[in-house]
């Protein structure tokens, strides 16, 4: 068992016949993921990795019980593909596309809320529960990163996740479920919204969040700890402590977050809440030990 996805989750792949789609479908199945079908308009009747392809998600959903949909779809078509999945009643959607228009992501996140669904991404590698299943594009074969264990990991980043996770593994730990919420300003689902899943997951003993400057997702995690909505040990690593200010978002961005958003603010909020913040990736493992998290 694990959270969001495990070996029993039935998955549809939208964009399955594309280069990326077929490549990662192979690897998802290899890891144990229950890919049951795929969708590419105009390719109905074909198969990819022996899985049938349909013209629409609705048609796929009439033939298969689908728990989750994995999107390998270009950014500009992502909104349409997510809406199609939601329309077919799918409640778990992962989209990895980098470059989804901002206003489209607002529409996606809002529609997901209305449908009581979770959209992970975009601009992410997806979700992986090592040795069980994955939805996304993780090099799960790199054993010094994707080792099974009892640490839940959430991240806004790509390669930094490999960097930090490798350190966690090097310290003798492994990963229960790793969720890449994505690096865009409006992710489909936010850090704090996954905490309940980790809290209730018996496989997860502690959580590591890999954050960065900007936005308020890390502050929301601190709030969840303060409100006792999350009570397990939590270690954070935050990139961008020394980054030059205001390279991108202007005043209004700062206002929404009420003057929050700098790494200093995030460290303060998390530390006050009782979480530990690692200064360097290398130290994440040490801090987990300090919190007495057991090694499997």
């Amino acid at each position, binding site marked *: 068992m694990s959270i969001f996805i495990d070996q029993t989750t039935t998955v549809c792949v939208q964009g399955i016949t594309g280069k990326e789609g077929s490549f990662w479908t192979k690897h998802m199945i290899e890891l144990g993921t229950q890919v049951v079908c795929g969708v590419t308009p105009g390719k109905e009747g074909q198969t990819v990795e022996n899985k049938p392809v349909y013209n629409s998600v609705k048609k796929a959903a009439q033939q298969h019980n689908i728990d989750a949909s994995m999107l390998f779809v270009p950014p500009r078509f992502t909104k349409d593909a997510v809406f199609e999945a939601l329309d077919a009643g799918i409640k778990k959607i992962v989209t990895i596309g980098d470059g989804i228009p901002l206003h489209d992501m607002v529409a996606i996140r809002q529609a997901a809320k209305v449908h009581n669904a979770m959209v992970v991404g975009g601009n992410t590698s997806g979700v992986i529960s090592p040795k069980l299943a994955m939805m996304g594009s993780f090099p799960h074969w790199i054993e010094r990163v994707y080792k099974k264990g009892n640490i839940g990991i959430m991240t806004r980043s790509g390669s930094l996740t490999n960097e930090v996770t490798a350190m966690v593994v090097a310290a003798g730990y492994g990963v229960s479920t790793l969720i890449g919420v994505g690096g865009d300003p409006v992710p489909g689902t936010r850090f704090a919204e996954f905490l309940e899943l980790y809290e209730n997951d018996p496989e997860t003993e502690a959580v590591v969040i890999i954050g960065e400057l900007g936005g308020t997702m890390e502050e929301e995690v601190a709030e969840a700890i303060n409100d006792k909505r999350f009570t397990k040990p939590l270690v954070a690593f935050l990139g961008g402590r020394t*980054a030059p200010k205001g390279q991108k978002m202007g005043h209004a961005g700062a206002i929404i977050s009420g003057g929050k958003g700098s790494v200093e603010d995030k460290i303060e909020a998390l530390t006050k809440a009782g979480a530990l913040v690692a200064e360097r990736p290398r130290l994440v493992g040490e801090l987990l030990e300090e919190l007495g998290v057991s090694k499997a």
Partner: protein
Amino acid sequence: MKLFEYQAKDIFKEAGIPIPNSVLIQEETMLEKALDTVKTPCVVKSQVLSGGRGKAGLVVFTKTKEDAQKETKRLFAKDLNIKHLLIEEAIDIKQEIYVSVTIDPNQASALLIVSKEGGVDIETLATERPEKIIKEPIDMRYGLMPYQASRVAYDLGFSKDITKALKNTFLKLYHIFVQYDAELVEINPLFITQDNIVVAGDGKLMIDDNSMFRQQRYEKGQTDYKSDAEYEAAQEGIPFIEFDGDIGLMCAGAGLTTTVYDLIHYEGGTIANYLEFGGPNYKKAVKSMEICLKVPSKVILVVTFGTIARADVMASGIVEAIKQLKPDRPIVTCIRGTNEKEAVNILKEAGLEPVFDTEEAVRKAVDIAKGGSK
């Protein structure tokens, strides 16, 4: 993409939001004719994208023609690298207001933000006196409804005429926000004149970079970039920022890059540039290194931990780049991820000494930059 004030104001004007009378000039000789239209007193406004133009002396109020000439000459001086000045009529101001529309990522809505205390630094106001700021959430499925714009306008407590003008300004600003796929559209200050007219005193419009494919109106030209290296990188679609330190960074992924940036600072080093070597650029090692070499630096540090960006491909690219470009400075590599063992072999075979740990690689680069061993 961030637009210049004059571009934002063009859009405001087209949308029906009043702007001051103004003329854009590209050189000193154009001032004379501009002053035929604008008249003194006027404001000479440098068209640059950085904030705090007033404090930096880049926006100047001038009373006479002679003053205007003097300031224009000063601002067009080569070292400031200013391409345009906006010569704008001076407005007789009664009050300054803050208005913007942006996104609330958590609520997945747009947000109309208004304050009666415009002109000042709104970020400071947000921290110190948040009660002075009105935030109206906008369900983007319906758009900003007239009743919302009206309610916010009335809450500011002006006369009926001004209230009506403000309401219309809010509605038009939201329309611009949608039409231009904006991250932010802001008028700060929005003037209320002594004649009770509402006029945009400044204009900021940031178009979402991910939406540029459907925003054909604005394309960045060479003059929109700070340096030739940044322009060249942009032409290749490679994210690139130039600083003035010692270490040239070729890094994959924004998160890893900012972390390496932190680690370099922890070790006492400085950065010459950021270059995004990840994503679709992982096959562009030669071009990437060529751009890095254009920026003065003492060492180039390559750090990756790739997923789709295969380590062996990147390693081969680096080897090829060194062969072709014969760099005049040392290269430190720390390339990991998919096929990382092959990558190590490729680099070793080419006579390089690949590092496999980020902190170690950073220390090595900082040592070199400080004049230590290669």
